[in-house]
């Protein structure tokens, strides 16, 4: 490892095996997964359902401990959830219903005496403006649409200026048009501040649009299949199509055969 900061990974996931218990069985979600995220990456975890990508993100968030391997953020082992890894969840109910939009963004800034009220308010309003919600700063979450709630969650995550922003399929519950717009907005935000983001999705087009680097995971249990470079935003449709096809082939080629052997001749 070199001494220069840019060359050192911000997040180092090495040999991580994750297991969780359900009521009657122990499930291995991922098996010896390695990847490194560097500052400024838009790093995508991509895979079909059951590849443990969300579990992996939760482990980076500190919600569960690996049974093997370790996760290091800036060299320190991740042990518990903390505000240096702000999460944006898929669910719309991630905002505190008893606080307005502005208060929601301010809450983590204020809690634990991190920031004075004035400073927190200024910062909150700045990021709320960035996601175009200034008009709704004093509204309560239940009066907002799904896309607006997700934008608040993103503003809240960014306002903390975390080392890394963790996004767990943040646009999956949105309608297709809103999702497309949110992807563009996220890219624009990234252009402005160049934060580091770890983004989970099961959509190949979304991975290519949003990501700069894509980690492909195979299912049951999740293992690294490939780590690819994505295309720059605004790449032409032919290149995107080719990459989509390539990823699709890598993810699903061998999965189809054992699952549906009798349809082979179809």
């Amino acid at each position, binding site marked *: 490892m070199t001494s220069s900061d840019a060359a050192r990974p911000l997040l180092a996931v090495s040999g991580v095996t994750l297991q969780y218990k359900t009521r009657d069985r122990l499930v291995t979600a991922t098996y010896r997964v390695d990847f490194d995220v560097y500052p400024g990456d838009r790093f995508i975890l991509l895979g079909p359902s059951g590849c443990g990508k969300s579990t992996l993100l939760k482990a980076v968030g500190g919600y569960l401990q690996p049974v093997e391997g370790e996760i290091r953020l800036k060299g320190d082992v991740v042990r518990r959830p*903390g*505000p240096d890894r702000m999460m944006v*969840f898929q669910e719309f109910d*991630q905002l*505190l*219903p008893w606080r307005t939009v502005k208060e929601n963004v301010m*809450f*983590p800034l204020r*809690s634990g005496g991190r920031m004075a009220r004035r400073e927190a308010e200024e910062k909150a309003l700045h990021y709320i403006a960035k996601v175009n919600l200034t008009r709704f700063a004093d509204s309560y*979450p239940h009066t907002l649409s799904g896309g607006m709630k997700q934008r608040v969650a993103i503003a809240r995550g960014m306002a903390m200026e975390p080392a890394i922003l963790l996004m767990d399929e943040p646009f999956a519950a949105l309608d297709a048009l809103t999702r497309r717009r949110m992807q563009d907005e996220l890219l624009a935000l990234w252009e402005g501040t160049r934060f580091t983001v770890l983004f989970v999705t099961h959509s190949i087009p979304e991975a290519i649009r949003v990501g700069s680097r894509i980690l492909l995971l195979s299912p049951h249990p999740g293992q690294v299949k490939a780590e690819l470079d994505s295309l720059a935003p605004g790449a032409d449709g032919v290149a995107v199509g080719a990459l989509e096809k390539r990823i699709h082939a890598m993810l699903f080629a061998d999965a189809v055969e054992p699952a549906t052997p009798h349809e082979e001749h179809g």
Partner: protein
Amino acid sequence: MSAATVVPPHRPEIVREPVAAGAFGIVQKPLSASERILNIGAVRKLALIVVLAVAWELYARQLHNPLLFPTFSATVQAFVHGMLGGDLFVKAMTSVKVLLKGYAAGIVCAAVLTVVAISTRIGTDLLELLTSMFNPLPAIALLPLALIWFGLGEGSIVFVIIHSVLWAVSLNTHSGFLAVSNTLRMVGRNYGLRGLPYVARILIPAAFPSILTGLKIGWAFAWRTLIAAELVFGVSSGSGGLGWYIYENKNQLEIPSVFAGLFTVIVIGLIVENVVFRTLEARTVRKWGLQN
């Protein structure tokens, strides 16, 4: 297979221009005054109260037996008289004071118990065990014991009120905590909140609808227990409360005053429910969209 050969007919594409709003008059129109008045819950309830009072008055007049069932007007008269000149007001205040003490102490105990229950597994077991043991136990059944332990005074009444409030509030608060969505829990921990700040700033607001229900039930239980306790052992701490007022007036066959005593309990109940709890609801769960 005819189904395979059925082809939907070819239809031309349709493009239309929306009609300008002026063409069809009303898009939005404010509700009329009567509609708006009927939308106020308090007005509807007041109307119901008037209907009930009229029914009471008519029935009692037709019965014409003031010893069994005094009229509404006689009751109101006794109520006003008791409040202004008699000792009804003093008695009511005594009762309310004891009630508030017991209620507040019960809530504090419930808070401690549920915080212990939510933070440790053995605490959860303890709460479940204690509530299943003591919740079915009528508070009034503990009164003889309380009298031996705390003497013939306020202390024993406060004790039985705590008993009646504690389990109802704890049960509701705990089930409210358990129902908080996993996403919100993860959000709270993401902020780095743990221990008491986590409970106070995430769990309690998120579980507030259930907590409020618990508080309402606890309030009603506290009243029942208080009046019953006062009826059973009458004068305590010098003056005695509403229960004693009712008992005393029954002995003197002042039936309208008995009704006035009961009426006082009802009036206080209505005020607390419709003013205190309603305001609390409007300022919290309704404003936050947790309840419609």
